[in-house]
């Protein structure tokens, strides 16, 4: 129980450190480092406590439930392998903290750095300890995100931004692949629990999806571990502050990939596919990485490629997968972490003290910083694989596996040679590092005068180098048990204990090591001078800068190509979009109706009426004419549209829909005026646009014509078939039966509108109100086109006297019609419930009455006499309608429950008193307000332009005067 809690605490500690660090003052370097360091140290203490059960072979587990239904639980799990890794992370983490404390400038904002660093540590530890493969991916992605923030810490530099972004993109993509792999894996195994997955190797390998899982899994691992060809993000990540590099590229980030390879070897390994993919990639990376490292001029660049190369080595071992190989892989994970961390720190010191990392400028530094120099020399020797240092032993183990292990494939046969070649280059680049930086003549053009760094900054390096030495000399005594424990936890408890020693006798691996040492020294001796003067990168290969290649590919894949495809698949023009919609509608109709659209066995028919046909001949002429003339003869088009509308009204009336006819007629009038109001602001179009006569335009029109005809014919066909089918029993019958008895009105359509389905009307008037308000709001900010401000030529000839003249006689009649229309509105309103009419029709009638006055006079004249506050009318109308609806609440009925009754008034007799009438009054008020508002808002634009014109002319005359 305690151990379970300890596991949780262990994961929580770095996050706690992150939170603590983020709360300190910006300049409190010491505090942040101390808090973080102490919390990590506490972690080490916990690890020490856990060592006992772990060394007993126990696997510790602890679970927090998060989303159990998805199998997403925070399960933590620790065995020997994890213990070793976590200890490494914590230990190096503390050293990095100490180092960073002195490395970072006083001006650096502390909290962010330490918080990110610690959160990253937490994510790494969480990943290592995850006992749930989905949670593993969660932490995995967290390390990607946090490393992004760390690499981009000095984000004012372009390199840092690019490096961070690239790292995120590469590792993030890998993480997504890993996610899918884990999901499928969980699917195959039936659980996301790591233990169950680890136990289900045979099932997984036998599954048809195995290659897919493996591929996705390896993509995840390789991207993270910077295996070729995904290695390029790692050198780019060198733009990070050195402590970050030292941490990310030694013990953490990049090691996550190899950790996973080793961890999942029992599940996914032991197949030929695995061997070729993993060992092949590892060897390629090993060799190429070491070659490139030799040719880098940047200190950190050299170390970065060395890291890549060493990760290749570990990967290759994981691919081989023999007991010895796994043990060697684990050993090299630790060793590499130790010497690479120290080397990065040393490089950081050099950079810090000299102001450059360019090896061509650095020289003879041993005289300025003998201690640092000595430390760096030892660490490089470890990196080169010099005996008595830790790197030598694990590399020796690798050579042994390369040489002794066989499965008979060509790759297997070439392993020893490749390993030796890589060894040669490793020696050469290590040598170059030492020789060029610390020896030779004193550098003259350094930005700073170098000297030893503060001693505390050197302490971590010293400690790490000490570890190199101790492990190198006494491997079996120091790391042996831990490594064996770790290997057991991966490969199985029955694994025989393997002794790790420096001396195994004079054998093939030793020969390979000696060849590598000798040839490496010879190689550097031969090439050293030329490398310094050459370009950055190996011959031939330097032209292909993987990073640049990647960026170009990325740019093509994530921008240029998508843009092309996006443009091809989409459009921003309206016409194609509308055309698509029409075509899709036609398609939908065809797909659903093709072959099954047929008349009823005995179709309904009403007799042919020649007058009706004649009227629709008119309607058709008007419709087609409106379409034909809408471009160049807009006015004619409006007139024709009016004709088509009129025939539509007639049809409604003819086919027993008087309400529709009345409403459509009134709307027709208002629409005509609206269109005319709009017409005034459109550009004059007198001459045909040249382009319209060209062939492409003709083809476009022909195509649209065909589309339109097909769509029209389709709609007509559907309408015809529907009309000839007998009406099926529908809800309409109920309305007819109950309109009078239940709704208290004889005009069923009106009863539906104000009672049965009053909620529709309620929504509909809201639409009107919204549109009114929108029109008003939009026109408040209206700016007409300059040419529209010019006086229209028809008007130009007429002076104001002529306007008064022109309107003198007709305006009399138009004024007379004002009260007549009001009476008509009242008539339509009051009889609506029983006979054709209603609030809407009445409202439009009143607004037409107002409109007529605007037509008969000018705006100023009318508004001096009639005060219309349309928005007020609208608000009140809405509130009346709403209040009528809510009124029903008082009687315990739902919204819009209407009450109808005939009230007896003496002398006058029965008067219908339906609450529906009040609702209709609301509709009326709203319609008046909205319609008037729309018309007047547009009309006022002319007034505004007139004012503008007046102001303009006043301005010009003033200028002339001045």
């Amino acid at each position, binding site marked *: 129980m305690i151990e379970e809690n300890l596991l949780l605490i262990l994961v929580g500690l770095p996050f706690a450190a992150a939170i603590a660090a983020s709360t300190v003052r*910006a300049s409190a370097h010491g505090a942040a480092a101390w808090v973080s360091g102490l919390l990590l140290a506490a972690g080490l203490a916990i690890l020490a406590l856990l060592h006992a059960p772990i060394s007993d072979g126990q696997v510790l587990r602890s679970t927090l439930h998060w989303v159990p239904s998805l199998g*997403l639980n925070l399960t933590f799990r620790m065995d020997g392998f994890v213990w070793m890794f976590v200890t490494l992370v914590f230990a190096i983490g503390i050293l990095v903290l100490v180092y960073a404390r002195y490395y970072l400038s006083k001006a650096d904002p502390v909290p962010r750095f330490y918080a990110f660093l610690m959160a990253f540590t937490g994510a790494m530890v969480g990943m290592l300890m995850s006992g749930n493969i989905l949670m593993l991916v969660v932490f995995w992605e967290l390390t990607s995100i946090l490393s992004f923030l760390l690499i981009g810490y000095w984000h004012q530099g372009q390199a840092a931004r690019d490096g961070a972004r690239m790292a995120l993109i590469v590792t993030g993509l890998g993480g997504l692949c890993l996610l899918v792999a884990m999901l499928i894996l969980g699917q195959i195994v039936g659980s996301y629990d790591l233990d169950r997955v680890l136990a289900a190797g045979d099932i997984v390998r036998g599954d048809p999806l195995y290659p897919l899982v493996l591929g996705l899994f390896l993509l995840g691992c390789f991207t993270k571990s910077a295996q070729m060809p995904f290695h390029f993000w790692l050198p780019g990540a060198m733009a990070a502050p050195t402590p970050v590099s030292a941490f990310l590229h030694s013990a953490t980030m990049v090691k996550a990939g190899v950790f996973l390879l080793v961890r999942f070897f029992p599940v996914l390994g032991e197949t030929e596919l695995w061997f070729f993919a993993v060992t092949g990639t590892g060897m390629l990376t090993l060799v190429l990485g070491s070659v490139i490292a030799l040719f880098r001029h940047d200190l950190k660049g050299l170390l970065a490629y060395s890291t890549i190369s060493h990760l290749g080595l570990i990967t290759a071992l994981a691919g081989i997968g023999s007991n010895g190989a796994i043990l060697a892989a684990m050993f090299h994970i630790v060793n590499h972490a130790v010497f690479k961390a120290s080397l990065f720190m040393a490089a950081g010191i050099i950079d810090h003290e000299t102001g450059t990392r360019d090896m061509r400028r650095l020289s003879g530094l041993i005289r300025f910083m003998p201690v640092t120099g000595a430390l760096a020399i030892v660490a490089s020797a470890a990196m080169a694989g010099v005996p008595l240092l830790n790197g030598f032993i694990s590399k020796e183990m690798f050579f042994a596996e390369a040489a002794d292990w066989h499965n008979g494939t060509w790759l297997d046969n070439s392993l020893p040679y490749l390993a030796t070649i890589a060894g040669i280059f490793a020696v050469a680049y290590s040598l170059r590092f030492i020789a060029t930086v610390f020896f030779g003549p004193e550098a003259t053009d350094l930005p700073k005068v170098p000297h030893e760094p503060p001693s505390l900054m050197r302490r971590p390096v010293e400690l790490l180098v000490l570890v190199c030495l101790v492990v190198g000399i006494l491997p079996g005594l120091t790391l042996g048990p831990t490594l064996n424990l770790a290997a057991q936890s991966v490969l199985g408890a029955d694994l025989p204990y393997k002794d790790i020693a420096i001396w195994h006798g004079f054998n093939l691996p030793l020969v390979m090591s000696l060849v590598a040492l000798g040839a490496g020294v010879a190689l550097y001796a031969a090439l050293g001078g030329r490398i310094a003067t050459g370009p950055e990168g190996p011959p031939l290969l330097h032209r292909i800068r993987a990073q640049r290649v990647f960026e170009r590919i990325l740019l093509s894949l994530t921008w240029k190509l998508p843009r092309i495809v996006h443009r091809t698949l989409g459009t921003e023009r309206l016409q194609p979009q509308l055309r698509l919609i029409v075509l899709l509608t036609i398609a939908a109709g065809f797909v659903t109706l093709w072959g099954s659209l047929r008349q009823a066995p005995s179709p309904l028919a009403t007799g042919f009426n020649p007058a009706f046909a004649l009227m629709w001949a008119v309607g058709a002429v008007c419709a087609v004419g409106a379409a034909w003339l809408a471009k160049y003869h807009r006015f004619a088009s409006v007139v024709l549209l009016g004709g088509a509308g009129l025939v539509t009204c007639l049809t409604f009336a003819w086919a027993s829909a008087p309400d529709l006819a009345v409403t459509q007629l009134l709307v027709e009038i208002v629409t005509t005026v609206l269109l005319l109001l709009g017409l005034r602001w459109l550009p004059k179009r007198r001459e045909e646009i040249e382009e319209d006569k060209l062939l492409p335009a003709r083809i476009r029109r022909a195509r649209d014509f065909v589309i339109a005809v097909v769509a029209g014919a389709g709609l007509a066909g559907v309408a015809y078939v529907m009309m000839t089918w007998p009406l099926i029993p529908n809800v309409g019958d109920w309305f007819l039966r109950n309109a009078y008895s239940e709704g208290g009105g004889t005009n069923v359509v009106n009863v539906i509108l104000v009672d049965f389905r009053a909620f529709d009307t309620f929504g509909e008037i809201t*639409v009107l109100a919204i549109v009114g308000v929108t029109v008003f709001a939009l026109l*408040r900010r209206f700016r007409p086109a300059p040419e529209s401000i010019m006086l229209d030529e028809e008007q130009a000839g007429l002076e104001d006297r002529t306007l008064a003249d022109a309107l003198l006689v007709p305006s009399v009649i138009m004024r007379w019609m004002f009260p007549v229309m009001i009476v008509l509105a009242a008539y339509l309103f009051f009889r609506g419930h029983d006979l054709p009419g209603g609030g809407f029709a009445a409202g439009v009638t009143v607004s037409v009455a107002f409109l007529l006055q605007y037509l008969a006079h000018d705006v100023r004249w009318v508004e001096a006499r009639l005060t219309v506050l349309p928005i007020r009318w609208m608000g009140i109308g809405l509130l009346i309608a709403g209040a009528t609806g809510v009124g029903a609440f008082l009687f315990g009925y*739902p919204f819009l429950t209407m009450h109808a009754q005939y009230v007896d008034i003496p002398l006058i007799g029965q008067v219908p008193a339906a609450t529906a009438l009040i609702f209709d009054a609301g509709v009326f008020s709203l319609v008046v307000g909205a319609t008037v508002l729309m018309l007047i808002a547009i009309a006022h634009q002319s007034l505004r332009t007139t004012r503008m014109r007046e102001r303009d002319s006043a301005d010009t005359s003033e200028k002339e005067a001045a």
Partner: protein
Amino acid sequence: MSLGPEHLIIAPILIPFFAGALMLVYDERQRRAKLTISLVAVVASLLTAVELLIRSKGSELTGNNDIGFYLLGDWAAPYGIVLVVDRLSAMMLVLTGLLALPALLYAAAGWHRQGQHFHSLFQFLLMGVNGAFLTGDLFNLFVFFEVLLAASYGLLLHGGGQLRVRGGLHYIAINLTGSLLFLIGVSLVYGATGTLNMAQLSMIVPVLPEARLPMFHAGAAIMGLAFLIKAGIWPMSFWLPTAYMAGAAPVAAMFAIMTKVGVYVILRLSFLVFGAGAGASAGFGAEVLIAGGMATVAFGFLGVLASQGLGRMAAHLVLVSSGTVLAAGGFVLAGGGAQIFAAALFYLLSSTLAISALFLLIEPMSREDGGIAALLALTADAYGLDEREEDRQPEVGLAIPGTLTVLGLSFGACVIALAGLPPLSGFIGKIGILQGLLTEGAATPALSWAFVALLILSGFATLVGLVRVGIQTFWATEGEPPRVLALEIAPVVALIALLIVLTIKADVTLGYMRDTAEAVSQPSIYAEGVLGAPRAAEGEASE
């Protein structure tokens, strides 16, 4: 829920209605009063929605799914209009409220002064959206669609300007066309079945005579097109990015729900009418949803990558989100199980909140540099490759001012949530869908795999696109940080806090979604409930 009128159900429609109408009577200069009314209304609607959500959870007895009915005008179901609240609609109501409050607060920081009658339009939009979620009648749905569209036209144009007017013109033209399609579809459905009531429709369709079936399908297909236009399905979604981008920040944030209305209606009607029990019509349109949804996701993430501005990216993310839910819905309709549906609903919730937050972030982020950052992000990539100086690295980090830190963290949270990266809720939703596809999508293996790939790719594209812009905005710009009011950043933080809550409480939410999915796939509960809903007058008579 209970006999007689239960006015709570209509409150999400009436509250914004009365608020909007009342504010029309107020003078435009009394902005403080309007803001107060508006805020009160939004909070009240949200609380009502939450209460409805709690009630619709029901109990063990009701199969964890209580359906509430509201007979408007006290007319029995197939004749009058009925409002129905169930788990799904209650959830959408809550989501609407959750988006509205931050958007309104953000607008209060200044946007509402940019034009006339902002608050009324905002309330009417809420009314329309809530109405569309609640109504159980096809034509009434049309009316509420029009209410919300009309309000959205107004809000989109709020503030004026060339971009808005141009985007608005396309938006209006296309939606008017869509509305006409809706009408054609509705009338065909009425002509073929004789009813407009969704519940009755679900009863009629399984027993519809064969001769009438094609007509009904045609109607459903055409109506479906109208919904899909609103849901932004490819290839009928090209208007969407421009329109959403053109809208003012709070408007765009609110628009995040608009495509979801289309998605909601598609899901609601599909499961009601074309569910497993629909006989010859079962699964109608599933292929279209799957193919269209996937194409939308693809188009969306290509758009994210191809875009130069953050606004356009966010708009394309809207497409990704709605395409994902549509395709997932299609898979469920084609025979997939509750898991995909539940996860898709979770994803819908999460992505909508995140997109809304992103829309609110865009404007403050690009305030100082006038949105150049987003532009530079690509041009630097595209053209600066070879000239990049091997500059001396800085050795001192920049202190990031508080505003930028908050903006940056918020942006980061949005990116993570939208890309479906762990640990935020987007990841959980995506995991759920992926799991569902791998287990339940076996009926359509090729399509399932394609969708898996698309989901991963879209997440990746989101990451690449947004990080590109984020880096340029937060890391590469020098100079003064933007001046941002607390009132502008608080809503974003609130939305992200919601995302975090959603993440932590993912199991509870997913459980709710699972029950919702179960309930939605049993249309008989809905249909029988609606048609048997008692009138208040009858309740009175029997007492």
